[in-house]
Structures are given as structure tokens and as C-alpha cells.
């Protein structure tokens, strides 16, 4: 076992000790683990045939009963089953688009902070442009133009939500690059690539982690909103279910189960991600520790 690994292990156990103190973060993590486990187990414990409109067995828009604990939708499918399968689509799109957004944001942020002059100015202008524009409207336009599909939705959300990350990472990069050891390594002949990947990236990584967690939360909200407004991936997601409930007029005709089930799932998962993200931030950013924020 070499020395770096021992150091990393102690750092990790220290991190866990600090994180454990964040009660809200623990609740968030518990909800998340449960949600991801359910999403992964769904294909093993349920029959996808129930998702097929033509083979649905229930009555149309039936209230919750023993056979259908969360009632049925307009074509007689079990809302519980749809919610379980929908979690897979919502979580997948949430994770993937957050990943895409974080990658673009981190690369742009580090580059904008590291380089001077033109590169930085152009990158900053593009970042500000994306920051100011209404991202939901832009994502809707992208999804409408590129046509449906899971990857389109991931792209539309990822491409429109990276700007605040880039800002954050740039600020952090600037403060890292002002430290003397960067100057030392530059004097020893380190190039741009070496400084950015070996010195800046490890230093901003914790921030990226905390921010990704928060980003997943907003990506899931964005996905559900896009699906509700008609830009869906073609598969049943929580937002798509709510869209179905709206088209059918579930909210005004008293079919509360169809509105509540997917909506509460979105809120629970999004809150869990937000709580985890805030807990991570509190642990990784000691400046926040004293003040109760």
C-alpha cells in the first residue's frame, strides 16, 4: 500500500465523519439510495407487459384499490407500475444531463480561469450568454428542433444548464492559480495542460462533486417540465405521466392519485439531491461551517 492511498483513505474517512454530522444530508442520502435501488430493481420484480397500453388490465382511471395501490391511468395501466418504470427514465436523464452539464461547465470554467486575454474573454461572454438566457425556453427549442429521444433531452438539458457551474469553477480556478505552488510549478516548466489537470482540477473537484449533486436535482425538475410541455423522450417518465394526467384533465376531475404519485416522487428525489448537495457543500467548504446557512 503506497502512501497516496493511505492518505486518500484517511481523507475519505474524515469526510465521512464530517458528512455524518449533517443530519439532513443523511436523510437525503437514504432517500436517494432507496430511489436508485427501486429503479434498478424494477425490471427484476415487475412485468414490463403492464406498461403496454394494449395489454393493460385495469379499469380506466380507477381510484386506488388493492389490485392497483395507486389507481390506474386513462388506459387502465397501474399508476404504481408506471411510477416505478418512470423513475428509471427520470433518474437516468437527471444523472446523464447533470454529468454533461458538469463536464462542459468544469472544462469551460477551468479554461476561462487559466488562460488570459482573448480565450478567457470569449469563454466568459459565451458563459454569460447562457447564464442570462431563459434555459427552459432554450432547452424546449433544442428538444423541438432535434426531435424526441432520450439523448436529445439529455443534450437539451445539459447544454443549457452549465453556465452557473462554469462561473463557480472559474472563480475557484482563479483563487487556486494565485497560490505560490502554481508559480513554482510553472517555473519548473509545467505546461498549461499539466497545471490544469494536475493542480487545478484536483482542487476544484470537491466543488464539482457538490455542484453535480445539486445539478441532478435541477436536471430532474427540468426533465419533468420538458416532458410536461411536450418535449419527452418517448418513454414514460414522471413528467410524462403528469402530462398524461393533464391531457386527461385528472386535476379537475378528481383523479388525485394520477397527479400526486409522480409529482411527490419528483419532489422527494429532487429534495434528496438538494439536501445531499448542501450537506456536501457544508462539509467541503469550511467557510460555510460557522454560520448556520
Amino acid at each position: 500500500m503506497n502512501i497516496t492511498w493511505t492518505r486518500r483513505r484517511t481523507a475519505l474517512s474524515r469526510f465521512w465523519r464530517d458528512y455524518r454530522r449533517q443530519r439532513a444530508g443523511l436523510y437525503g442520502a437514504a432517500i436517494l439510495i432507496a430511489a436508485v435501488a427501486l429503479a434498478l430493481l424494477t425490471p427484476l420484480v415487475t412485468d414490463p407487459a403492464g406498461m403496454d397500453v394494449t395489454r393493460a388490465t385495469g379499469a380506466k382511471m380507477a381510484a386506488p384499490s388493492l389490485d392497483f395501490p395507486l389507481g390506474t391511468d386513462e388506459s387502465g395501466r397501474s399508476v404504481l407500475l408506471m411510477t416505478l418504470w418512470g423513475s428509471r427514465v427520470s433518474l437516468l436523464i437527471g444523472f446523464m444531463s447533470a454529468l454533461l452539464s458538469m463536464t462542459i461547465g468544469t472544462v469551460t470554467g477551468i479554461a476561462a480561469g487559466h488562460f488570459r486575454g482573448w480565450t478567457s474573454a470569449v469563454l466568459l461572454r459565451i458563459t454569460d450568454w447562457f447564464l442570462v438566457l431563459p434555459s427552459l425556453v432554450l432547452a424546449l427549442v433544442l428538444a423541438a428542433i432535434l426531435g424526441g429521444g432520450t439523448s436529445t433531452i439529455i443534450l437539451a438539458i445539459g447544454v443549457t444548464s452549465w453556465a452557473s457551474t462554469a462561473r463557480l469553477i472559474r472563480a475557484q480556478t482563479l483563487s487556486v492559480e494565485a497560490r505560490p505552488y502554481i508559480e513554482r510549478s510553472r517555473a519548473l516548466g509545467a505546461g498549461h495542460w499539466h497545471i490544469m489537470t494536475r493542480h487545478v482540477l484536483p482542487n476544484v473537484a470537491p466543488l464539482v462533486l457538490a455542484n453535480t449533486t445539486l445539478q441532478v436535482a435541477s436536471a430532474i425538475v427540468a426533465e419533468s417540465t420538458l416532458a410536461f410541455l411536450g418535449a419527452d423522450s418517448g418513454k414514460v417518465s414522471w413528467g410524462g405521466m403528469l402530462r398524461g394526467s393533464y391531457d386527461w384533465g385528472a386535476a379537475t376531475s378528481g383523479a388525485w392519485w394520477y397527479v400526486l404519485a409522480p409529482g411527490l416522487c419528483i419532489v422527494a428525489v429532487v429534495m434528496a439531491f438538494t439536501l445531499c448537495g448542501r450537506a456536501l457543500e457544508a462539509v467541503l467548504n469550511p467557510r460555510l461551517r460557522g454560520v448556520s446557512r
Partner: protein
Amino acid sequence: MTAPSEVDPGTPFDVEPAGPAGPGGERGARRTVLRYALAKAGGAVLSIGMVIVATFFLFRLIPGDPAIAYTRDVPLDPAQLDRLRHQMGLDKPLMQQFLDFVGRTLTLDLGTSYEYKRPVADLIAERVGPTLVLVGTGLVIAVSLGLWQGTRAAWKHGSRFDRFSTGLSLVLWSVPTFWLGLLLLMVFAAGVGPIPGIFPTRGMEDVDAPDGPLYLLHVAHHLVLPCLTLVAVVYAQYLLVMRSSLLDEIGQDYVTTARAKGLRDDQVRRRHAVPNALLPTVTLVFIHIGFVVGGAVSVETVYSWPGLGLLFYEAIQGPDFAVMQGTFMVVCTAVIVMNTLADVAYHVLDPRVRSA
């Protein structure tokens, strides 16, 4: 969507240190402000230019022939189709098409709707009013409520009120706007169990809308639920921003000084801490205007409020790319202009930024 405001990357725009405050004094300061305003206006023009360029190239990515899309798949013989393509300028080289597009856009000719066969600019003009009513009312309520509650929460931070406020804004932030709209629709417009619905479910006015002053009341009655939804989602952000901004001020020396002078707690808050905390908050209010616009699309869709957001939503369902394109450009331009105004106002109002 933006992340909760506390993780906002500080000031979302550059605070450029103005040159050394030389002997120029007041006049020098004014000139700096003017130069700053001009630079920002230039930036805004550039941003709007980027919107136009991006729009042109984005909407050329649409698969299929725009002429066929325009006819809505009504079969045409090749000669008719060619004539239509010529009318739409599709037979010209790309560069020429681009220049034509820029020229038309600058003269506010936004094309013809596929759906309505009417100028997009007219459609947009008809829909601006309702959106302004909804977003304007919503913003005024959200800002006043958010600032008030944020101030109270920060001043007594750690108190029950503070924990309640932070918790509430976390929950509201996690709730998708449209779902909150559906919930309110379910409870207050459709009614739950024995409780009847007390608000209309859709639109801005009914066919039997009364005339005169009663008309305002009629619209206000329709406005309650959409406005409530928008406020709930937006005000949480302002609350959090105001709270963290005031928390930053509370630790400052001048607040301690004000207390040491023997000022009452109330005076320290109202006369010293809040004005300083207000400036960054007010700017963030404008920075978040893009988020508000996104919220307005959802809200207008859920309640069929006849504004720009609903027009945009209908264009997506069509799809009516001409309307989508026009609405997109108009909304983006409005957001950029608002932001720039806020940015310059901030610079004028806050001397700390100028002489940093």
C-alpha cells in the same frame, strides 16, 4: 433552471475594478459610470446578435423541408412548391438567406405562422399584455414577500421562523412549477370533496365577462391561481438570496458600530444593514428573470393563460417553427435588456463596485 441561490457563483457578472480614483472626483466618477454603461450596452447588443445568429442556424437544423412544413403536408404539385420555396427565399444561397433573415428580424418582420397564417409579430404583440400582467404582478408580490421574509429570517437566524423559511424555500425549490399549478388547480379550482372550487380553471376571462370596472375584478379573479403558483416558485429564491446577503452584512464592523452607538435593533436593521444587503439582491432579482420566464411558460400552460408562454407552448405542440423562432428571439431579447439595465443600475447605485 438555476441551482438554489445560495450556491450562486457570487456576483454573476464581472465587477471590474474601475481605474484609480484620481483627481477627477465627481465628474471622473460620472464618466466611469457612463463608460461602464456603454460597455454593458455594447455587450447586450452583442448578446442579442448572438441570439439572432444562433436562432438562424438552430432553426436550419430542423429535418425536412420548411416549405412542406408550412403547407402542413397539404399535397402540392412541384411547381407550386417551387413557387413557395422561392417566396420563402429557400432557393437563395445560405449566406444570402442569413442576411435576409437578419434584415427582416431587425425590422421586426418575424415571419408568418404555419398555424395561423398570420405575421408572428402580430401574434406576439397580442400576447404580450397578459404575460406582462401575470409576470409583473407575480414579481412585485414575490420580491416584496421574499425580501421581507428573507430579512426577518436572517436577522433572527437560527430561530424557528428562520428554519421554517429555509425549509419552506427548499421544498418550494424542489417542486416543479407546473406540478404546483396542477395541485392548486386540483384544490382551489376543481375543489376537494365537499369543498367547491372557488377559482376558475382556465383562461384570463370568460365569454360572459362583464364590462367596465367589474372587468378588472373578473380578470383578477382569474389571475389569483396562476399568480400564486408563479410567486410560490419564484419568491423562495429571493428569500434565500436576501437571507444570505444580509447574513454577510451582519458580521460587518459598521453594524457593530451602529449597535455601539446605541441605536435600536430595528434601526440598525432598517437603516444600516438592509440597504447594503439590498443591492446585490435586487440585481439577482433581475439576473433570475430568465428563470421567471421559464416559470411563466409552465404556469400559462397549466392555466391556459393567453400570454407569450402559452403561445410558445402551442408552437411546440404544432410544431409551428415560425412562431417558436419569433417568440424565442423576443423573449431572449427582453431578458438580455432587463439584465443589462439591472447591471448598470447596480453600478450607479452601489459606490462600492465603482471604487473597488
